[in-house]
């Protein structure tokens, strides 16, 4: 005896499984991407020069140093990847050591420097000095401290 019984009208239902799959995939994608971007780029207002003579970032290996703004033209530290280095001699020395390690692993590394447009130069110049110092600590003659100054342009 058949166990299938049909009563009344045939019910038409949309199969929502693929849509839920796609939605969850999108959620996972955006969560991951937003976290990566947040870690690499601290929110700030980058300089926006008039008639910029800039270039688009290439595919070269790079590390991003963010000068974390706190208002009033000051900075609270320097972010490289997921690590934050405090301002001051000790923090900058640690930053230079960390950069030297990156240079040893990849002598062609470029450093992207992101700083808020209102940040005072006294908070940014030590980063340039730390990059130069890190390159000098590496025993590879080919290391040239190359920095990319990041600005924003209207497309």
């Amino acid at each position, binding site marked *: 005896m058949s166990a299938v019984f049909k*009563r009344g009208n045939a019910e038409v239902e949309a199969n929502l499984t693929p849509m839920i799959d796609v939605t969850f995939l999108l959620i996972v994608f955006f969560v991951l991407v937003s976290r990566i971007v947040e870690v690499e780029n601290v929110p700030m207002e980058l300089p926006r020069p008039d008639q910029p003579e800039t*270039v688009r*970032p290439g595919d070269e290996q790079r590390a991003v140093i963010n000068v974390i703004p706190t208002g009033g033209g000051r900075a609270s530290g320097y972010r490289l990847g997921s690590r934050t280095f405090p301002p001051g001699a000790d923090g900058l020395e640690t930053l230079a050591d960390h950069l030297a390690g990156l240079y040893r692993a990849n002598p062609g590394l470029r450093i992207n420097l992101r*700083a808020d447009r*209102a940040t005072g130069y*006294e908070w940014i110049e030590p980063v*340039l000095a730390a990059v130069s110092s890190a390159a000098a600590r590496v025993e590879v003659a080919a290391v040239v*401290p190359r920095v*990319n100054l990041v600005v924003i*342009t209207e497309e």
Partner: protein
Amino acid sequence: MASSAPATGPRRDPPGNATGAGLSTPVPPRGSGRRRRGRARMALNLTAMIDVVFLLLIYFMVATEFKLGEEIYRLDLPPRQPAAQLRDPFELDEEPLRIEVASTGYARGAYSLRIEGPYRQPASFEELFEFLRQRQITEHTVGGLFEPDHPMVIVPTRTTRWEHVIDVFNALARAHYTNVTFAKPR
């Protein structure tokens, strides 16, 4: 054992039955133009998915339209090595052109510029660019003073806003000077 029609199934009247009693889909009266025969067709309702796809499409179009792109200036810092290794002892010093920049307020246009030397001082970044372009030694300029690789030093104060430092760098980049460095803050 012969099976008969299930007693619990939908009862189907023969076509043309005007009463429609017991039908799964009521039969429209004659002359209405709609007739359904046989089983009801199952179709996937794609409306919701199309809605979502269009929303995503609009989102990406809008986000792309107003996206501000990050671009870069390339800068090679001078390596920190002992001076004896860097310099040729027989090479004459090439005096760098030092450009001082200071912020005089919080506004974008609140800044001051000064070029070291007996030059007409620029009042704006555009004037600085014109000065740098006109004084460059090229095939097309007369009376140029500086080669494209002449050392140029940007000298900000401690409190100079980063955007003003970048504006000076941009003027040098627009004029195609290639040997640009930053000094320690004044």
